[in-house]
């Protein structure tokens, strides 16, 4: 039996409180820490979070019917479209940059790798968290892992790959975590495991990014022909890769602006050079995607759809958010203009968001009258906004405490 004498207990308590103060409140007292967050941005975040918690509770108590605009015609709405399809595509930095650095030895980009892994980890965790509110029987979600396997389902592959990929991201990120906790032995152990996790991660991430597109393969008669293609899995994989690179460009820009004091030996020239390098990679993949899209339209002989309202919308997506970024990037790389690279990256990210919404909500059931189309309720929007807020706050929380940047 363990005997703790009063003075020992006092000692432990003191140690605990100083640990919390050092690690959680960054050496400030609780009230100091709180005071630091009294600014409009955090108040806004607080309001969004309150609204989203209300929506979550409402969904859990009353069900999907009262909380959302989902129906038998539109079984999937904003939560699947935005939180899962968009969220997972934008959480692809780990797939792209971390792989290039850890596996293929592109050491120049090493600074980008840790933030990339972190954003993937947070992105996936919160995407799955959001999914729990969309699933009718969320408490059964583990059935798919160990109880009943639907081997013919694309969703089965996705579920398993999400499960594995979150573990992989955790392994990749854990050295920073254990270092923060001061557990150096564990840190070294997981550092060694990291390369293997990355190798496995490429397969897993590639598999489920394409599978998200393959979800819609089964509904050929319900999808608009311009968005439906046997190549959907490849389009989803390709766009996830360029979304991942764009997110790295944007995140690093924002992070280096806000957390400049956290970055050791920050080198502006070096950073800009790398941004241009990422821009080049982005250019190549966007071009490949554009060519595939052209081949796709020609293969299915879909040109005549382009002069319909859906066709105009399709051209808006492709020209505005793929073609124009390609042109901008060509200039940017030639002129060494990092600002233009960042603008293009922003356009590409917006384009990927638009594409996922188009595939899952606009092109799906495209033939039904406009009045019967789905649009989200304020609760659906607020829950998704809350998830985005949580992602940003968690990223900030971790970046300010662990060695990420």
């Amino acid at each position, binding site marked *: 039996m363990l005997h703790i004498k009063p003075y020992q207990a006092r000692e432990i308590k003191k140690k605990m409180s100083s640990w919390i103060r050092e690690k959680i409140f960054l050496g400030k007292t609780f009230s100091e820490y709180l005071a630091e967050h009294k600014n409009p941005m955090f108040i806004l975040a607080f309001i969004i979070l309150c609204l989203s918690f209300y929506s979550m509770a409402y969904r859990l108590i009353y069900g999907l019917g009262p909380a959302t605009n989902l129906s038998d*015609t539109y079984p999937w709405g904003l939560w699947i479209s935005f939180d899962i399809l968009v969220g997972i595509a934008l959480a692809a930095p780990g797939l792209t940059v971390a792989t290039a650095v850890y*596996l293929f030895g592109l050491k120049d980009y090493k600074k980008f790798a840790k933030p990339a892994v972190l954003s993937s980890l947070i992105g996936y965790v919160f995407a799955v968290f959001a999914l729990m509110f969309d699933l009718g029987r969320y408490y059964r979600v583990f059935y798919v892992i160990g109880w009943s396997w639907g081997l013919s*389902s694309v969703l089965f592959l996705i579920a398993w790959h999400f499960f594995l990929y979150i573990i992989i991201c955790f392994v990749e990120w854990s050295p920073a975590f254990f270092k923060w906790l001061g557990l150096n032995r564990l840190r070294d152990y997981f550092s*060694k495991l990291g390369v293997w996790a990355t190798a496995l991660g490429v397969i897993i991430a590639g598999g489920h990014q394409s599978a998200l597109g393959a979800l819609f393969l089964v509904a050929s008669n319900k999808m608009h022909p311009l968005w439906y293609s046997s190549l959907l899995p490849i389009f989803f994989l390709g766009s996830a890769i360029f979304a991942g690179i764009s997110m790295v460009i944007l995140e690093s820009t924002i992070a280096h602006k806000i957390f400049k004091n956290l970055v050791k030996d920050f080198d502006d020239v070096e950073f800009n050079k790398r941004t241009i390098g990422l821009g080049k990679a982005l250019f190549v993949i966007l071009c490949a995607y554009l060519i595939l899209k052209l081949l796709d339209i020609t293969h299915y002989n879909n040109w005549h759809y382009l002069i319909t309202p859906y066709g105009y919308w399709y051209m808006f997506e492709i020209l505005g958010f793929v073609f124009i970024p390609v042109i901008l990037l060509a200039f940017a790389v030639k002129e060494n203009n990092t600002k233009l690279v960042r603008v293009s990256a922003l356009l590409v990210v917006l384009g990927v968001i638009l594409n996922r919404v188009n595939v899952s909500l606009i092109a799906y059931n495209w033939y039904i009258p406009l009045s019967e189309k789905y649009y989200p309720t304020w609760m659906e929007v607020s829950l998704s906004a809350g998830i985005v807020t949580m992602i940003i706050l968690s990223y900030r929380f971790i970046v300010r405490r662990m060695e990420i940047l």
Partner: protein
Amino acid sequence: MDRREFLKRTLISSLTLLMAEKSHATGKETQRGNRANEINWAKYEAEKKTREAVQGESYAVLVDITKCIGCRRCEWACNEWNKNPNKPLSEFEKSASEKPSVFDRIRRTDAETFTIVNRFYKEDVTPIYVKKQCMHCLEPACLSACFVSSFEKTKEGSVLYNPSLCVGCRYCMIACPFDIPAYEYFEPLRPQITKCTMCFDRIIEGKPPACVEICSADALIFGKRSDIIKLAHRKLDENPERYIPHVYGEYETGGTSWLYLSPVPFEKLGFPKLSKKPDTEKTASFLFTVKVLEVVASVPLVYAAYKAISSKGDKEKDE
């Protein structure tokens, strides 16, 4: 009444008010707690254990659209048998003549309605009545889509749903080309998918589905699938002026257990145009390709990982 009691009562009454208002506003609060699918699944499980399933070929139903008079008795019988919310038979029967009528808009199946009859018009404005229910595909898209395998195609022909495994992801509803599975959106804790079971519980007792049994217009015919297909073609041959030459469901999406004969092209009656190859083949080939690629890709990746580790080791030695 002390203060605590007062607060408690206020809270409870406002909560109940909120809930009552909500359910009143939607009018769909009854769309939950369906038992028909659960009962059929239990019968299927029991039947699997006790005796050999039906010998030989599965069953099918032929819907002769030209014979349907829109009496909606099939809807009534379906609700009655499956214990779905129902109304007196006369209210169903008068829909065809009454104005305004439920036929004024095109309906679909929902959480408490497994079959419905819709009204369309020929060019000479004579009405055409079309029954809609689960088609009981031979290669069901819902079954292939389900990630916890909670659908089963029985030897009798029914596609059955097992509520005890369902996670409620609603991918089956996305996958179904006929928009059949419905969901209990107003059930917060234990929602399920609901759909027609082809009256599996009647078929195993040697009876036809409830809708077929009640049909007095001769529009629904139940039998072995091969016999039904022969019958359909005989009807086409004998009365070529009555029908368009197409048995819907013979080949659509790999074949279905409900087959239709129509006087006008099926597209005009809201039937999707489907190829002979079911979409589930595309999914299957995708899954196969991914698995092959993952295995193939793992070789260079493992090599790269090995290289990355050994070069790191070298560097550490150098330092």
